[in-house]
């Protein structure tokens, strides 16, 4: 594929634990292009988090080659190639929302006026204008997670890596945030890697759905979405959506094999 943003070539990662080696990733091949929205789905322990962390240079592959923007993951991190959104918002209670979003900017050495401008811009992007002066505990869980997305966007990384960012939220809030995320992705054209446990969420959001299976963690199927870029929430009732969801479910079942 042209201008690959993430290129994994036979990436393996084995954790050495007290109970022997754990093959969290085995021979993972994947190419993600500029502007793709890629979801990773699979049963617990199949290595979704590990793969995302490897891309972010938070883990080192034990074999294979992984390139991010043509660099090693470590170089890419230093070049601010990605913003990472964890499952919990992880906002600092002693900083305001604006202060929290500004935190990575301070660390990266952006000037004060530049920081203020960027904070305003990303607050607007995640629909939190006017909340910059609030403290995290004054915001709902969904708003806090939006603030944490804003924080990951603030320094203009091309890639957004998200590990079950909405996993702890209720369905209605989750729907709204999914819509907002799609909107944001269309506006910014970022490449997004998104880990989820939910088939509808994966189908609704993604241009490509990567189905993984455990022991050893590997990719069993990559499904390209046939849904249009414009996706209102009720697209989830369309036959095309239902067909894709079914395909993902089948792929998950195959991956599970005998121990399903």
């Amino acid at each position: 594929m042209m201008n690959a943003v993430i290129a994994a070539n036979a990436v393996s990662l084995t954790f050495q634990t007290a109970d022997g080696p754990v093959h969290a990733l085995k021979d993972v091949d994947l190419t993600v292009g500029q502007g793709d929205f890629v979801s990773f789905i699979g049963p617990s322990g199949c290595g979704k988090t590990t793969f995302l962390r490897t891309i972010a240079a938070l883990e080192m592959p034990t074999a294979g080659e992984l390139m991010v923007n043509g660099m090693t993951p470590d170089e890419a991190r230093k070049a601010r190639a990605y913003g990472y959104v964890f499952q919990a918002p992880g906002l600092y209670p002693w900083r305001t929302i604006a202060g929290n979003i500004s935190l990575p900017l301070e660390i990266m050495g952006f000037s004060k006026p530049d920081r203020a401008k960027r904070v305003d811009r990303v607050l607007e992007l995640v629909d939190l204008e006017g909340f910059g002066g609030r403290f995290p505990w004054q915001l709902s869980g969904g708003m806090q997670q939006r603030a944490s997305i804003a924080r990951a966007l603030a320094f203009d990384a091309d890639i957004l890596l998200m590990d079950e960012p909405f996993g702890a939220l209720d369905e209605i809030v989750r729907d709204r945030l999914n819509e907002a995320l799609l909107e944001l992705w269309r506006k910014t054209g970022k490449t997004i890697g998104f880990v989820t446990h939910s088939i509808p969420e994966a189908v609704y959001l993604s241009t490509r759905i990567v189905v993984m299976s455990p022991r050893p963690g590997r990719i069993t199927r990559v499904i390209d979405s046939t849904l249009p870029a414009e996706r209102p929430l009720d697209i989830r009732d369309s036959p095309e959506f239902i067909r894709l969801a079914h395909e993902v479910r089948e792929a998950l079942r195959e991956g599970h094999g005998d121990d399903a």
Partner: protein
Amino acid sequence: MKNAIPILTVLLALVVIWYLAAIGMNSAWVRDQAARAGTELTTTELVKQTLTLERPVLPAPHQVAAGLWDGVAGQKITSKRSLVWHGWVTLSATLTGFAIGSLAGILLAVGIVHSRTMDQSVMPWAVASQTVPILAIAPMVIVVFASAGITGLLPKAIIAAWLSFFPVLVGMVKGLRTPDAMQLDQMKSWSASGGQVFWRLRLPSSMPYLFASLKVGIAAALVGTIVGELPAGASAGLGARLLSGSYYGQTVQIWAALFAAAALAAVLVVAIGRIEGVTLRRMGLVR
């Protein structure tokens, strides 16, 4: 104030027990005196005398209160008989020692959290330092400093620091280690330096632990200072007041000094508690 009732009940019970104990413990002496003088005592007289002795085995609460009042308000505060003056001598050494001790505790904790070598080498010594009985060390410290011509505040402050650095060290090590793996990964994802992680994450996260250990530390510093005032020769401070009281059998003076020390400790701990409350609320760490 609903919660004042249980506290007052307990206080009342303590005072009653104290009076009974005073009567019991002083009665032997009173009976002795009466027998020697060949007089018969009625129970009322016996009780009355046990509570008004000059040098009782156990002074009654009102005697201690009178002694405290006299020491605090009945003397010029520059007088050697003033508890305010002795209290100030003790307080200044306590605060100096506490400042030295907590600073040392914090610095050592920072080192321990950032260096494996320090973690393994400093901790055992810190623990060992606290197992040495302070009563044995204190006179030596005083004597060593005195032979170098240093007396007064500094040697006592060193003993206070000795006792107060440990709780601060332990609390800060725990506090600086509270950030979880996710928070540290987050910092790593921004390629933050060790210093940035420290100032922006570890230090603010450690504040609740810092304050908790400062409260223990300041009480320990006060104990250290008083112990430092006990060795012979000291003439100033609540510790010296305790000791001279026991030389001359002035039990009222001992108890008054004890209560003054307890009140000082309470004031110091409450003061840190106030600062803690304001700081943590501002930081959004308590609500």
